[in-house]
């Protein structure tokens, strides 16, 4: 797994990258009550806002960690936003992206670096 400073996690899976937010992020946000996911087929660039999430406290934007095309979104999460709190790194994933430049993954943090960031 790779991590961003925006508290996203990325997991490579069959040439695609699955993206979600970390447990640390969901704990900070509190109960998540709304998730708006991008349309499948959307081409996104790194740092572009792609997802809106709202917790009981506030709205937050999730930015794309890399360039690519959105190939799948987690509709179960849109129906049940609490999945992000219950299983942040599993059933609470946000979207799958087909990277256009796989080398962008290299600049991201590994788990040790991320844990140091949030410590």
């Amino acid at each position, binding site marked *: 797994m790779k991590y961003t400073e925006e508290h996203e996690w990325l997991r490579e899976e069959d040439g695609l990258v699955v993206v979600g937010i970390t447990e640390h992020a969901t704990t900070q946000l*509190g*109960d998540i*009550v*709304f998730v*708006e996911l991008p349309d499948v087929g959307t081409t996104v660039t790194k740092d572009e806002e792609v997802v*809106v999430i*709202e917790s*009981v*406290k*506030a*709205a937050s934007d999730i930015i794309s960690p890399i360039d690519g095309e959105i190939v799948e979104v987690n509709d179960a999460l*849109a129906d049940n*936003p609490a999945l992000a709190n219950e299983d942040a790194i599993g059933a609470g994933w946000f979207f799958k992206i087909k990277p256009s430049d796989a080398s962008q993954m290299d600049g991201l943090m590994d788990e040790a670096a991320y844990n140091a960031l949030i410590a």
Partner: protein
Amino acid sequence: MSDLFRTPLHDLHVELGAKMVPFAGYDMPVQYPMGVLQEHLHTRSKAGLFDVSHMGQVIIKGADYEAAAAALESIIPVDILGLGLDRQRYGFFTNETGGILDDLMLANRGDHIFMVVNAGCKVDDIAYMKANLHDVSVTEITDRALLALQGPAAEAVLSTLDAKAADMRFMDVANLSLAGVECWVSRSGYSGEDGYEISVPAAQAEALANELLTHEDVEPIGLGARDSLRLEAGLCLYGQDMDEGLNPIEASLPWAIQKVRRTDGARAGGFPGADVILAALDHGVDRRRVGLKPEGRAPMRQGVPLFEAEDGGAQIGFVTSGGFGPSVGGPVAMGIVADNLREPGTVLYGELRGKRLPVTVVSLPFIPANFKR
């Protein structure tokens, strides 16, 4: 580290694992480990204990109750002289243009009036009363905490400490002996549920809170759930749903102004902004606070602009409070809209992230009130 005030329950909040945030100059618990959603639902199904010690507790005393009541009626447009002994009433201070300076609860305690005002306004409120009330004393009570026990189990829980709690009706006040301490208790609150607000000497506040928390139905509840509970109950938050620029009729609070203070009443007017407020009662206003139910799941929060049409047209209102309503299971909001659009069932559009999404005007509250009348 910070110059925030602490309530007498501060250590207990930290011990209970609360997430503390600055609120109105105080370091307050926004949530406990249970989380805002569950805290909200727990309060609606059982009972929640809130620390509201940041609010202002004030005693107003004159030669007798009538003297204090008459003085307050010169700055508050409600019937205070007619308030029964040991009864509580909602009210607000108005300004010369009819706007609201703060809202409050006041109680007839026989030889004095006990008032609770908002934390963020209390310094101004007290200075204002001292400057404008003659021949009465205005004393801020700084040596007592204020707890709220809210929810359908509140009566059963408080009755285990003093059986007299069960005899109180909604908006009654009484002195109860709770855990050996004399407390000033009202049967009221800010959640839409039955419950009590309890003024307790600061030194005994933590012991009483702990005593209440030992009951299996009682959980500590933070400011986050307090806000979602009051929003579902259709209750105004000062600074959001009402302020100095909005008169009580625009804020949809005409019920708070009793007939005796209205045009042709025995004590009509006689408060700041009376001309504006009585004219608003008699002839209507151009905009009013309404309940709003966004369609879909996206919460519409404070400040979201409202439109009559999905495309084009001028803004006709704005959201004053909004968020997710855990008991409703979806977004809920209140807002100010043009008076001709206030009828329940009217579909309006809230502009969220550049898109106009439908919201329906609804009657308040979102959940039926559960008071013991």
